[in-house]
């Protein structure tokens, strides 16, 4: 097989004035602007591009397009590049994959000799026993795995996302797709036309027929003059509910790939047809190609595919290839006509090239010397987008391919997917499809707008759903050509032969879905585009059934692969910071991500921050703390319904701690709520629970108690929240607080006051203490947060004021034994397990979770307890298990653990079985290292200041 560049072709897409230099396995090559990597290499006479996956057989061009299974290469640090599609660029460093030690001479080709061991399901049979050898198997398999090399040092690249809402998306830009786009646009629809290829035109691009070229010129001119948005080198990868489409754009000027999420009102599927390889002995030998490959090589890139060809043709595409080959001087040794019973049964030659073809033609069986075999055996209808819309395509044996059955009415098929016609017929069907798509899109648009309260008024009534009055396309008869009288490769990506599939069927894997998974046929990079129907045919043959009876596998998204980068980036997740963040950043903060929030974790030394709070005074930014402003006469009833404790008699100016349980009795959230005025309350939630509690409140108010008068306003970010904690906090607050009496009797523990702080009006503060110290939790209008923080820092410089972060707060709350919902409790922790039985008021008429909590009173529950390891210097890992003695019987776990700088010892909270909850109980904790340590349950949750004298101060 000798490929070579020919003289200028009228249809070629290369610019022979623009020479591009590149490397192929380290050697210098050149091609032209407009070449694909594969066409440039083919023009330079290269004909082996890869080694096959299992048997490491040399492989060359098969289809010369995106789906070619043999053209996967590495380009620089980019693995698995499709050389049949990727355009050549100057300076590319292209290397073959999976060809150790080299493409032309490698050891693994010895696999061919072992072929009889690499049978169907060999992964399952070969690498299972003995199990202790698995690490070795894994290492061996990894060296065999196909695919390129991932460079972990590859710099991050930019990936883009776009959202769009066109009326009509047309997937496929052949003559039918372009005609549909133009007709829909003329009918007033906004249209997005998506071309998988680098240019629109479909099969017209590589046709040398004058009428085809004239039509292509005309269609392109019409597109240029239209309002249709055209995306080239882009693929509609998925169709989801209500025509939500994923489109990957590979030729974005800046982004490596861009993922477009389109909500189309109607989708036109016009992907055309994909040439199906034929199964026979030696069908994977370099030199066996499809007619499309021959015509693309000749007409797009001016490459002559071989010197002497046998053409096996069962359709007009095969005939057209004959004409193109003759034009560039390839000798046609024979044309075997599949329509009249001719057949090809094998190729002969070295492993590296076809040298002869065994045929059964009009002269009977004969061997014909040739370096090229072109096989036109039929087509696969890529019904993927219809499958994704719920359609189950039906096989038509007369036309030897699948056709759509009953797709939803907002998905329309046209072009080769829908049937056969001459060029005019395809254009007419496309145009009719475009008009229908536009009419239905108008009805959908009207419906969407009229159902949106604040949209502009919509004119008139909703248009009737346009009936499908398109004249259906015909179905040209085509012989059913799947396998010759010999066996050969079905899946060239995965090296699965028809023999393997027959064997799988005989082993009982005779459903196509099972055979696919057992053999991995259709699961390689071609993803079934070339091999699915041949797989089905092989199974059908083994079962003695028809293709219709066997059915096909379901094609799922994506239609063509897209990178993880396209799916992952760019994120639209907001990052939230408090208004005090600039101060933190200027003061050596170490931040921690908590949900969407970036929060100060510490400022260098959390233990020192803790000691400063215990000795002097510290400030922590607790802005993310959830805050709901509740107003109305029925707020007490709402609080009583949502919290387990009582709220009807909370006086103005008072604050109360509350715990919320879900309807299953599991702890949902906790926090304090204060009464600011007669009908005005402020509820605080945990930082992570802020969103969920708001939904919970709205759910009760809207669905269970719609008659209650309560207004709920989330004000989490309307206030900056600062906790001022430590024995000197009152002194500090008195220096900045102008109009409130901070005396212990005027403003006692668990009360709330409104005040002007550092000149800022409308602040409120409550005296509570998560840290266990005298503290004032200050909430100031968010815009003034930084000002108030700085004012506190200035005013307290002589008091030793300093910041503390979440880590310091976590240490101090653990010293005080305050549990954190979601850390010390989990999705099974019932309210009483927290030890707060006295909080749960079962005599209330109703509250969330009441029945479960009432029944829990009769049960022994796991309990949250405070635990101290016997060795004060050992801090068990959080989630370390509490076990029985030297056994592995699990009796509980450590839920929080820290080293306490106040007590100079290790302290924990944990959950234990009911009979281990009493103070003084000895426990065994199993560390991650495997070491077992002793620990003791203490009498109460607080490791420090159990009487609470400090915080009440």
């Amino acid at each position: 097989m000798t490929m070579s560049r020919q003289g200028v072709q009228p249809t070629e897409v290369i610019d022979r004035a623009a020479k591009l230099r590149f490397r192929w396995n380290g050697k210098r090559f050149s091609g032209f602007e407009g070449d694909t990597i594969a066409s440039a290499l083919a023009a330079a006479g290269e004909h082996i591009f890869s080694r096959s996956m299992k048997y490491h057989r040399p492989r060359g061009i098969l289809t010369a397009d995106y789906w070619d299974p043999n053209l996967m290469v590495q380009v620089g640090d980019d693995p698995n590049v499709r050389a049949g599609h990727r355009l050549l660029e100057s300076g590319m460093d292209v290397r073959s994959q999976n060809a150790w030690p080299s493409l032309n001479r490698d050891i693994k080709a010895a696999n061919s000799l072992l072929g009889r061991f690499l049978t169907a399901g060999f992964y399952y049979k070969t690498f299972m026993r003995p199990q202790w050898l698995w690490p070795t198997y894994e290492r061996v398999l990894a060296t065999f795995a196909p695919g390129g090399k991932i460079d972990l040092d590859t710099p991050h690249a930019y990936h883009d996302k776009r959202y769009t809402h066109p009326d009509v998306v047309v997937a496929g830009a052949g003559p039918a797709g372009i005609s549909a786009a133009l007709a829909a646009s003329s009918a007033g629809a906004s249209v997005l036309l998506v071309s998988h290829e680098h240019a629109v035109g479909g099969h017209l691009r590589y046709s040398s027929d004058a009428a085809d070229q004239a039509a292509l010129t005309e269609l392109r001119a019409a597109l240029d003059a239209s309002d249709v948005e055209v995306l080239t080198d882009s693929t509609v990868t998925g169709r989801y509910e209500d025509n939500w489409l994923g489109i990957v754009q590979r030729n974005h000027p800046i982004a490596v790939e861009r993922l477009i999420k389109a909500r189309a009102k109607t989708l036109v599927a016009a992907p055309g047809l994909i040439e199906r390889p034929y199964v026979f002995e030696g069908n994977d030998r370099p030199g066996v190609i499809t007619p499309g490959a021959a015509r693309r090589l000749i007409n797009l890139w001016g490459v002559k595919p071989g010197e002497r060809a046998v053409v096996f043709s069962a359709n007009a595409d095969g005939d057209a290839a004959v004409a193109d080959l003759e034009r560039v001087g390839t000798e046609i040794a024979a044309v075997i006509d599949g329509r009249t019973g001719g057949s090809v049964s094998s190729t002969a030659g070295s492993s590296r090239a076809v040298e002869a073809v065994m045929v059964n033609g009009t002269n009977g069986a004969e061997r014909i010397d040739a370096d090229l075999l072109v096989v036109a055996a039929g087509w696969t209808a890529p019904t993927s987008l219809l499958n994704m819309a719920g359609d189950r395509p039906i096989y038509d044996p007369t036309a030897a391919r699948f056709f759509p059955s009953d797709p939803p009415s907002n998905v329309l098929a046209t072009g080769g997917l829908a049937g056969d016609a001459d060029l005019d017929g395809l254009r007419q069907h496309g145009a009719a499809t475009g008009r229908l798509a536009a009419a239905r899109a108008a009805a959908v648009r009207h419906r969407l707008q009229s159902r949106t309260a604040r949209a502009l008024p919509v004119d008139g009534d909703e248009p009737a759903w346009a009936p499908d009055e398109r004249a259906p396309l015909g179905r040209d008869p085509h012989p059913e050509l799947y396998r010759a009288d010999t066996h050969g490769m079905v899946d060239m990506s995965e090296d699965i032969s028809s023999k393997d599939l027959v064997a799988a069927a005989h082993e009982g894997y005779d459903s196509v879905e099972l055979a696919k998974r057992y053999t991995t046929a259709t699961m390689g990079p071609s993803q079934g585009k070339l091999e699915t129907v041949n797989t089905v045919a092989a199974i059908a043959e083994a079962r003695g059934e028809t293709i219709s009876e066997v059915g096909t596998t379901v094609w799922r998204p994506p239609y063509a692969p897209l990178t993880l980068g396209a799916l992952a980036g760019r994120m639209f997740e907001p990052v939230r910071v408090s208004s005090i963040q600039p101060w933190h950043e200027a003061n050596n903060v170490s931040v921690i991500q908590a949900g969407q929030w970036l929060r100060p974790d510490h400022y260098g030394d959390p233990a020192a921050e803790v000691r400063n709070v215990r000795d002097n005074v510290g400030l922590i930014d607790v802005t993310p703390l959830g805050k709901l402003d509740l107003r109305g006469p029925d707020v007490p009833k709402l609080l009583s319904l949502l919290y387990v404790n009582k709220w009807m008699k909370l006086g103005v100016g008072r604050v109360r701690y509350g715990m919320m349980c879900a309807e299953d009795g599991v702890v949902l959230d906790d926090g304090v709520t204060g009464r600011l005025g007669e009908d005005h309350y402020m509820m605080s939630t945990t930082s992570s629970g802020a969103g969920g509690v708001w939904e919970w409140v709205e759910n009760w108010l809207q669905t269970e108690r719609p008659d209650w008068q309560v207004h709920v306003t989330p004000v989490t970010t309307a206030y900056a929240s600062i906790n001022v904690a430590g024995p000197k906090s009152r002194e500090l607050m008195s220096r900045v607080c102008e109009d409130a009496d901070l005396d212990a009797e005027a403003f006692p523990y668990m009360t709330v006051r409104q005040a002007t702080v550092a000149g800022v009006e409308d602040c409120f503060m409550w005296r509570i203490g998560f840290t266990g110290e005298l503290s004032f939790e200050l909430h100031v209008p968010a815009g003034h947060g930084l000002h108030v923080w700085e004012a506190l820092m200035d005013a307290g410089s002589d008091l030793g004021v300093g910041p503390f972060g979440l880590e310091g707060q976590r240490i101090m709350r653990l010293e005080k034994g305050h549990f954190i919902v979601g850390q010390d409790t989990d999705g099974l922790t019932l309210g009483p397990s927290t030890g707060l039985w006295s909080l749960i008021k079962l005599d209330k008429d109703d509250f969330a979770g009441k029945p479960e909590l009432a029944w829990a009173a009769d049960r022994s529950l796991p309990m949250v307890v405070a635990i101290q390891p016997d060795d004060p210097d050992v801090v068990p890992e959080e989630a370390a298990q509490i076990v029985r003695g030297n056994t592995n019987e699990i009796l509980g776990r450590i839920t929080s653990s820290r080293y306490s700088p106040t007590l100079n010892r290790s302290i924990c909270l944990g959950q234990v079985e009911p009979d281990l909850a009493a103070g003084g109980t000895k426990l065994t904790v199993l560390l991650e290292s495997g070491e077992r340590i002793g620990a003791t349950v203490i009498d109460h949750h607080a490791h420090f200041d159990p009487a609470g004298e400090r915080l009440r101060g």
Partner: protein
Amino acid sequence: MLLVPCPNCGPRNSTDLRYGGESHARPDPNTASPAEWRAYLYLRDNPAGWLRENWYCASGCRRWFSVERNTATNEFRDPPLPGDKRGGAA
């Protein structure tokens, strides 16, 4: 992705909303037997067909509303129109 018909905001991507599951009445917490209460907590009809279910327009108007959807086809039947005051559990 499903378009969910919010009575205030119009058809919105389902990711803008929170799925509230099947509509079901809350038993009287003072008289419900454990079996009744746990049926309310955990048991769902989960039909392949028409289902009345709740949605919360979390990124929009923050209204809970209920609507009938065919779980086999994802068609919404008689979806609430703008200003529709239906809502909550059926």
